[in-house]
């Protein structure tokens, strides 16, 4: 797979540690994500992958370490600061607004982009109307791109799981993020759905140039999709490199096959 032609670093994680009481979820983890690449984070269950994503988008605040995103370093940030800065994400167990339609869910992703005041929106008049139409136009593009035209009016709680995951991806894309975090985008999908999702991820990366960090359990997917892979085990980074390098790494093989620690 073609490597992105820039080595500019979008996000750097340095020496991040995170503990919940006595449980050390992350121990001194450092890695970086380059602009335009698809970066995978893998590891056995409980390795701290989701914790890592939660640190990046501000749900968790690390006990030690720093995160540099777009050249700004900080010890911690709030979730809305992360999304304002251009980080979008999806969740391991789909987190959609269940009572709202697919369209409204994706529109919710535009929240930060809407500028007009409350009064104008209420009256649906002038600039606010133009703004709503413009955002709607962008959202329709995303709906076309993800091939979910037929379900745009359906309350998402009624959709099958695979489609819910697609709507969730749509909502993240609507934020036009610089960095997209995907937490197990293929979990619970059948082969056909996985192939569709892989195609969308590659297209997002190619067409929009969006940098993607993803967690995934399906090894064949990870090896096909990603440019670089970081491997976590028990909260420690044990390997980092191209898919081929990682596959050969003895520590990784041990972690997956279960050597006594």
């Amino acid at each position: 797979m073609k490597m992105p032609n820039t080595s500019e670093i979008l996000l750097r994680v340095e020496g991040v540690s995170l503990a919940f009481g006595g449980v050390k979820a992350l121990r001194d983890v450092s890695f970086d994500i380059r602009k335009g690449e698809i970066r995978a984070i893998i590891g056995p269950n409980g390795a701290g992958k989701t914790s890592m994503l939660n640190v990046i988008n501000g749900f968790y605040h690390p006990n030690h370490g720093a995160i540099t995103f777009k050249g700004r370093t900080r010890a911690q940030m709030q979730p809305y600061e992360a999304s304002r800065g251009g980080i979008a994400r999806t969740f391991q167990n789909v987190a959609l607004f269940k009572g709202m339609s697919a369209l409204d869910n994706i529109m919710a992703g535009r929240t930060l982009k809407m500028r007009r005041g409350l009064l104008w929106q209420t009256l649906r008049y002038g600039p606010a109307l133009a703004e709503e139409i413009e955002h709607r136009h962008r959202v329709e593009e995303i709906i076309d791109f993800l091939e979910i035209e037929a379900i745009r009016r359906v309350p998402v709680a009624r959709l099958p799981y695979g489609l819910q995951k697609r709507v969730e991806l749509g909502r993240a894309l609507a934020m036009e993020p610089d960095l997209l975090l995907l937490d197990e985008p293929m979990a619970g999908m059948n082969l056909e759905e996985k192939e569709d999702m892989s195609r969308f991820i590659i297209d997002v990366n190619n067409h929009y140039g969006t940098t993607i960090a993803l967690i995934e359990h399906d090894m064949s997917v990870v090896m096909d999709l990603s440019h670089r892979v970081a491997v976590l085990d028990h909260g420690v980074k044990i390997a980092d490199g191209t898919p081929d390098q990682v596959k050969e790494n003895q520590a990784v093989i041990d972690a997956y096959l279960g050597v006594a620690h």
Partner: protein
Amino acid sequence: MVGLGQFLEVLIGGLMSGVLYSLVALGFVLIFKASGVFNFAQGAMVLLAGLALVRSLDLLVAWGFPLWAAIILGIGFAAVIMAITAWLIERFVIGPLVNQDGLTLFMSTIGVTFILEGAAQMIFGSDAYPLRLFPTDAWFLFEDLFPGGILLNKLDVWGGFIAGILVAGLAIFFERTKTGRALRAVADDHLAAQSVGIPISWIWFVVWFVAGLVALVAATVWGTKLGVQFSITFLALKALPVLIIGGLTSIPGAIVGGLIVGAGEKIAEVFLGSYIGGGIEYWFAYVLALALLLVRPQGLFGERIIERI
């Protein structure tokens, strides 16, 4: 034999008092729709808003302000009190409980109820204070058609008018604005809302503040009717069957539920009372709500309960 005139009078009187129940129910619906929290403290908020208003009014009039200025300033003062309350609730109660279960949040609002009731009476006094914002006399309509005419309280008409404006405003706010969409999003899923950049603490402040304003409106009407006093908090109990009938998530449902309860209990009292004994007014609404729960648990206008298994 009961005449048509009497029936109409009872019906209209019942519908009108139903609108006043709706005013209280609206506060519940608002918070539930927007944060998924069933706010037990709504009755206490009506008491707090009413006390802040009536006490500041008395003081301003005593200082020699003209009545119109005193009313404007008094309402402004009460609104500020509700804003401070909303901020405190978000900061110290609901805020730290982000991502918790709905039941946990509900329990916390029970705690808020006691604190608000205590604080409101400690600061503003615990007597019954009369409030005279709206006329309390009555019109007699169609006197040439029916003997004695049909009695219509001016206060009830004001209540209906205000409720109408409130509902229209809230419906537009929820359906059409970015903030409205953000409110619905927060109600559905805290984490997902945060992930798309909705500042959850700001949204919750807005919700509790708007619910405080609805409580203030309810307090102006109910305070004029009953006087501002502790028993006004029991209105919250009357709002429960209204919510069950109308549906917890529907603003129009709160209005229709109120109308059904108001008209139903008055008609039952007047026309059934002589056969099965009086006092029907006090339990009719609850029995009606119970019956409806059996056939339509989400209420007349509530969202269909959708669940994939």
